[in-house]
């Protein structure tokens, strides 16, 4: 075990007290308090939606907290916007990169902070470049500030963003910056991650860091100390010296699973023959050699950490993304042209995880949304025309069946609550008489009551003879709903096991195969 740097009693650079932040329908942070000392690398662990990013955004001034207090270097700190935070020495390395690709590196470094380099309105490029070169040298980075930013790889641009923090704090004459790293490792190779970590450790003499990641091993390797967030609360603070990944996971998950919630009593134990087969499916960079079979009236759950390939797998099976090798068959017949439209024709539908942009159309009426995939199947007097009466009948059927709360069948979808929107999304695909429906995180971002209703709907679908593939980040949901569970890690299936109602597994069991 590496000896972590022993640091004597040190000043806090950041103190957050009772930060609360909510968005419509969801409490992102519930009275969260953390501390970061000078020169520390502090990590935050937690599931998707636990509040980690939200907290960072508040510290960086991008969101405003509903309540709570922040202290920076022992002074009250309430940044109005990101630039304001910069002026106090707080910087963020954004997941989607915070640099303008078409500017030169040095231009990005000083963007919106060129006051020191201006004489009579004219920019002193030489001075800026000189400053930038010096900064890169002092940070041991082999980056040429006079090149255009898009010449550099994702990883290198991250380093540029980090160096931006140092260059600006130097100009603003601040002692030590606080650098927030929001899931920086998502797009990096192992080698690049190692470089990043070495650099961060190197720089921790001159800066403090907050680091978010899904990969627990990274948090243990890099950080001095670790917070664990769950459901918007800071539930534990751990020193990483003697912590294992299992320790962390135990705190992260471990909720009581309510079998009634997942309607486990409705789970069908006698599933039928295999109707949908995926054979050695591979897509470079995402997943490889995935083989699975879906039986009639079965809910097959696929779980794994974010980035394990399950989402990509779902998209490929649905015909939305292309895969490199392998085959898909339904009812024993291999499907030759795997495209979205063809898969729909063969009876396979896909309920996307991004409800707002890919699932329902907010600016279209409820009835038009529900009938959209079914339009090619509807005829009027034998002609390929729209049959408004039939459409409205279908709509009304589903509104009552799924208990969708909407003022009118012609109301715009954006006016519905998240839960009702999700029901519309489900109705859309159920209306189409499919054999297989693939669902990606069907209960993401909706309230508990609506979740229950969705689970009931799913069980009813099974009762009617459908088969479902459930891809989800919610472990409890995965366990509660599925007949069988497949776990993926880094693109391959690591385990597959049954999940009968009388012998459900636990989250911890699953997690073992996920990390």
């Amino acid at each position, binding site marked *: 075990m590496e000896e972590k740097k022993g640091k004597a009693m040190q000043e806090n650079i950041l103190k957050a007290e009772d930060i609360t932040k909510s968005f419509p329908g969801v409490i992102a942070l519930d009275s969260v308090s953390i501390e970061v000392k000078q020169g520390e690398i502090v990590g935050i662990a937690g599931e998707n939606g636990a509040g980690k990013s939200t907290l960072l955004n508040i510290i960086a001034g*991008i969101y405003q907290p509903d309540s709570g207090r922040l202290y920076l270097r022992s002074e009250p700190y309430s940044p109005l*916007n*990101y*630039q*304001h935070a*910069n002026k106090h020495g707080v910087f963020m390395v954004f997941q989607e990169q*915070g*640099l*303008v*690709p*078409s*500017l030169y590196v040095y*231009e990005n470094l000083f*963007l*919106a902070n*060129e006051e020191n380099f*201006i004489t009579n*309105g*004219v*920019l002193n*490029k030489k001075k800026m470049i000189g400053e930038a070169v010096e900064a890169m040298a002092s940070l041991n980075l082999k980056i040429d500030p006079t090149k255009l930013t898009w010449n550099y790889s994702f990883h290198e641009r991250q380093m540029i963003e980090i160096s931006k923090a140092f260059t600006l704090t130097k100009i603003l004459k601040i002692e030590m910056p606080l650098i927030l790293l929001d899931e920086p490792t998502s797009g990096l190779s192992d080698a690049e991650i190692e470089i990043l970590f070495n650099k961060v450790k190197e720089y921790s003499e001159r800066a403090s860091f907050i680091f978010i990641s899904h990969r627990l091993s990274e948090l243990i390797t890099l950080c001095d100390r670790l917070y664990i967030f769950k459901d918007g609360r800071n539930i534990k603070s751990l020193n990483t010296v003697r912590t294992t990944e299992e320790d962390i996971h135990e705190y992260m998950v471990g909720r009581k699973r309510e079998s009634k919630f997942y309607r486990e009593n409705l789970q069908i134990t006698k599933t039928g023959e295999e109707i949908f087969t995926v054979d050695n499916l591979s897509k470079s960079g995402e997943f490889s050699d995935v083989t699975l079979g879906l039986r009639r009236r079965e809910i097959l759950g696929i779980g794994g950490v974010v980035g394990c390939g399950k*989402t990509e797998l779902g*998209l490929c099976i649905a015909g*939305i*993304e*292309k895969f490199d090798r392998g085959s898909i068959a339904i009812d024993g017949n291999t499907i030759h*042209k795997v*495209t*979205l*439209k063809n898969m729909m024709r063969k009876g396979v539908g896909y309920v996307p*995880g*991004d409800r707002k*942009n*890919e699932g329902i159309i907010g600016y279209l009426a409820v009835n038009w949304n529900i009938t959209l995939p079914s339009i090619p199947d509807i005829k009027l007097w034998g002609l390929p025309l729209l049959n408004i009466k039939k459409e409205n009948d279908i709509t009304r059927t589903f509104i009552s069946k799924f208990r969708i709360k909407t003022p009118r069948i012609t109301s715009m979808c954006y006016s519905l609550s998240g839960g009702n929107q999700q029901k519309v999304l489900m109705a859309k695909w159920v209306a189409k008489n499919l054999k297989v429906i693939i669902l990606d995180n069907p209960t993401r971002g909706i309230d508990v009551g609506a979740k229950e209703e969705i689970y009931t709907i799913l069980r009813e679908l099974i009762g009617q003879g459908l088969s479902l593939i459930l891809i989800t980040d919610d472990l409890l949901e995965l366990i509660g709903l599925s007949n069988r569970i497949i776990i993926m890690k880094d693109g391959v299936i690591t385990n597959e096991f049954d999940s009968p109602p009388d012998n459900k597994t636990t989250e911890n069991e699953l997690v073992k195969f996920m990390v």
Partner: protein
Amino acid sequence: MFEKIKIHNNSAMQKIIDTILRFFKRRKFVEILPYMLLLVLIISFYLITPIFLSRDNILVLLAQGMVLLLVSTAATFPILMGSIDLSVAANTTLSGIMAALFISNIGVYAAFPAVLVGVGFGFLNGIVSVYFKLPSFIITLGTMSIMDGTGLLLSEGSPIWFQNDAFTWIAKGSIFGGLQNIVVWSVLAYIFFSFIGSYTRFGRYLVAIGGAEKIAKLSGINVEKYRILAFTFTGLLCGIAGILQISRVESASPHFGAKLLMEAIAAVVIGGTPVSGGVGGIHRTFIGVLVITVLSNGLDVSLVHPYLQLIIKGAVVLSAVVLTLDRSKLALVK
């Protein structure tokens, strides 16, 4: 994560076209394209008729291209930002007409304040863009109409002629033997604005806004202020262009707008600033203007019918745009 999902449907046609276009999309190619094009054009026209490269013709060519230079430079500002100004030609025309009227009715010095007309309309474009929050193409489509109408109204539909040697000297006199003055003023103006583009915060921020508006805003750049400034500068340049134009032809005509608009945008795009914005700069527009001017002049000298010229130029513009558009930035092409 979800932005990168593109639905594939095995469309062979799309695949072929994308492969061809990918070759052209390489940035190096985009940068070399205008120079290559220029070379090809010059050689071709010279082969067709050697008069093309005669001293006299070159001088004429340069003079012909100056108004376009200014108008294209004007158009570059909003394009850098990712917007567009369809009213640049109408603005130039109107400024010219107002200047001509002032000269006829008041006196030669009254011509210069006509520049303020250009500035005014440019400013209007900026204000409407920021406060009404409308897409720039519709705003400038509207103001283009307004300016066209005003121009037609004031000129009563026909060119305004005037006689003033001092004024004509501005464009047609020559300080440097042979070279028309309009070239001198225009190049000076161009250098000035090019400098602004490359050496001031303003120029840099336009590129930032065009390249990644979200990030620019986050970094604290006052997007609204720069948007208004950009459109105002556009108006200023159009005003100047208008005055030089009427000085050159000794009249103001309300009719040559549409062609000028298309050529201006073409020059910007061919020069290397794509319509999606965020790349390139004012310094690039010069070569684009040269290409268009050489093309126009060459077609003239080769005695190609003016109507055919219109078609050829339109086709060149379309091709240039298709080849240089930065498609990765347009997730959904509307």
